[in-house]
């Protein structure tokens, strides 16, 4: 019973988020950056309501620079996927959050950056890549796990 009520509550919250965000959000980016690395040190996921783009960018230290070109994977985003993203966070909640969570870049993990562009402004949050705060955890998981691991074979 409790599980059922929790599910209902979650669905209702997700629906409210979707309703609010769908009129305001124009695009979302999640970027992970590892300063001291070789090879593809930056992975960036960007989505708007029509497309999703994954970019892998080489680092700038001498050994890796110019050895690899920037990789870009563009694919179409289904409306259901975009709605899933919009329902995964509350814009109202993000408005009151600090701009930096934890200590990004202080340890060996990647630095995380979330950018949400709306009609009115652009929200930007820095976080520890491996430990995103609860308020954006679902969105970051969707962006870097679910939405960009399929369609990569389809050319």
């Amino acid at each position: 019973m409790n599980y059922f009520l929790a599910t209902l509550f979650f669905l209702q919250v997700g629906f409210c988020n979707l309703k609010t965000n769908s009129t305001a959000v124009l695009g979302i980016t999640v970027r992970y950056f590892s300063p001291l690395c070789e090879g593809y040190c930056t992975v960036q996921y960007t989505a708007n309501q029509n497309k999703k783009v994954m970019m892998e960018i080489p680092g700038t230290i001498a050994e890796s620079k110019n050895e690899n070109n920037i990789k870009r994977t563009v694919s179409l985003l289904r409306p259901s996927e975009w709605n899933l993203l919009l329902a995964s966070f509350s814009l109202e909640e993000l408005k009151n959050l600090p701009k930096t969570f934890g200590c990004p870049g202080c340890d060996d993990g990647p630095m995380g950056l979330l950018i949400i562009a709306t009609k009115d402004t652009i929200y930007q949050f820095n976080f520890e890549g491996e430990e995103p705060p609860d308020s954006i955890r679902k969105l970051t998981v969707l962006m870097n796990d679910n939405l960009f691991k399929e369609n990569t074979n389809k050319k």
Partner: protein
Amino acid sequence: MRTSMKLQWLFLICLPVIVGAQMTPEDERMYFEKSQQLAQFLGEHPEKMDSILNEMDRLDKEMRMKKTTKKITPEKAAQPETTEAHLSNYLISSGNDMVFDDWGYGNAEILLVTQPYKPENRSEIKVGIINDDGRFSIKKSKPVPFDRTIKDFFKCEGSQTIGTIHDNPDMGAIPAYFSVRQDGKEIGVLSMATSKQQAFNNSPAGKYRGDSGFRIALFYIEGPTSVKANCTRNIEATDYNEIIKQIEITDEFDLSFEAGWNFVKVSIHGSQNVGNIPYYKTKKYSVISVDRLTDVNWVFYRL
């Protein structure tokens, strides 16, 4: 206003790379740096995605042209740029015989790969081989699991006011394609179409291309069902250079599926040019018996 000015500024600083003759090491360095700047700009301004991607495409195209210019002779350089440069990685069979005369990749395996919504539901089934002489064969596949429905694939896009008639919108469906692999590594994709251009029409880059002919898409369907729709909408079309304009396109669905594997014929009817790029006027979807096709070719796309 600030972001669009910044974008214009980025375009301007890209100009020295775009306008020029041949690719020098300095050009390559600049290309890399400009690509990085554009990638960063895309991340910071996801709302400008379309215009930034167009600029990246233009930058890439110019770099490829410069690299090509280095290799070709002066006589060839004097000729206009071929419009089929984007098809250079494609092989096509002569007729519907299962052989590629120009095959040069050695022995390979053909796998049927499904495209589910959840990665854990993906199926990869070996269905054939390609011999080093280019001859290949494909056998029928067993059923595969699916996690999406017919309405996820066949419906009107871009408008809430136009409806699609499904007699059972929740019938399970999954698309699949043929992956060509060597030692477990994917080296290309095999498809059926009337031309290389038609196979390219199926790529994200060519979704709206209007090269004439048809291609065959493979779908596994849970049970008998049908879809009918006639959807007209406007899209923003570009020649990836200077022209951007609204054009009208139509998607027509007249599909009667049976349970099991179905071959969906996707055909282009009429085209409209934006610059030199053809966009389709009408795209029709129907289910056909693949045994009766005579004008289809096999197309291999080398990754």
